[in-house]
């Protein structure tokens, strides 16, 4: 393998269930339950998943939830906004840790 990520691997997801299939089955039941329509629609959940995929920078999830979002009727404007939400939260998370920096500096500063 010449690179770490192979897009064909997404279709092989179930091979993780080769060992401890009970855990895999539990995960899949939970996953499918989470992503099914509930108080939020499938489309809304797909946009959340797309944002999270970018936050965790998972190329498999980005591939998968780009397709799911389009197949749920979302458009690139909405999907881009979802990515910006991820970027904003990640950026905000970095900035709020600036207070940690200030606290740490205060501890060792006169």
């Amino acid at each position, binding site marked *: 393998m010449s690179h770490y990520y192979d897009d064909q691997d997404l279709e092989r997801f179930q091979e993780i269930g080769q060992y401890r299939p009970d855990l895999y089955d539990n995960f899949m039941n939970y996953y499918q339950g989470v992503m099914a329509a509930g108080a939020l629609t*499938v*489309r809304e959940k797909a946009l959340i998943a797309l944002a999270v995929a970018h936050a965790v920078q998972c190329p498999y999830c980005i591939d998968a939830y780009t397709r799911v979002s*389009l*197949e*749920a*009727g979302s*458009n*690139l404007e909405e999907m881009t906004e979802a990515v910006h939400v991820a970027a904003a939260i990640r950026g905000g998370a970095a900035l709020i840790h600036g207070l940690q920096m200030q606290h740490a500096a205060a501890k060792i500063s006169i």
Partner: protein
Amino acid sequence: METFAPFARTLEHLGYHDFRAAQVQTLQVNLGWRCNQSCKHCHLAAGPDRPEMMAPDTVEEILRVAARWSIPVVDLTGGSPELHPRFEYLVRGLHRLGVRILSRCNLTVLLEPGKEHLPGFFRDHGVELICSLPYYQEEMVDRLRGPGVFRKSLEALRRLNRLGYGQQDSDLKLHLMYNPAGAYFPPEQGALQARFQQELERRHQVRFHQLYTLLNMPIGRFKHYLQQSRNYEGYMGKLAASFNPDTVAGLMCRNLLSVAWDGRLFDCDFNQALDLPLLAGLPQYLKDFDLPTLAGRRIHLGDHCYGCTAGTGSSCGGKLAAE
């Protein structure tokens, strides 16, 4: 090398060893492949320069068959059917016969010079319109159907709305047809219809009755795109993997017969595009139309039929199975 079972074998496993039509409820008439648009997904590769147009004798034959066999529904398509010189003559004749007339309209043709009267003509002859509008935003529509198509389509829809088409409780039926702008499946029809209605009303003050979702068939220009973009194998594999047995009983070929511009008969417009004629032994031309023989005919199947059975199914009338 295909990685999925042939469609006919998939049906055999379901018990359909001899897949047949149930009736001929609808005669879908393709008046020609000429169109004022050249959509990237068109299964017929229709466009302004296509010479294929139905001959006047064949138009007469449509009227004769509709009358002789009391065909309940005639569904006019193309190309852009309105560009056929005898389109209005045919509609008037069908209207006199009391046939329910559906016409598939690309909307922008209604703004072409000499065609501005068509909305009123449709209204006066009770024509139900099924209009192509693959999204409620300009970018996606123009990417699929050509620059400027979205804005022109909205103008055409407003003209139709002003005549009563698409208005709540109106008998002047105006439906929209969605298809994806790429190698992916259509959204859930009900949810997308609600968004279309909300967005078109809010942004553009445009109304319609129902939204039909249609999956892009892997033939014609769309197949070319799939191959060029290296999506063909993945798309076909996903179609086959998404086969839904609940769609089979309602497949449009079971209730519809397609008439090509040259008078030949096909099980559907897609078979027409692929030149897959009715099976041997059946009448092949409109002039030989015989309802008892054609109503229960065996269907000419191909692997493209997976396009009608994937997920909630796909047809000229939208989805086929529950969501």
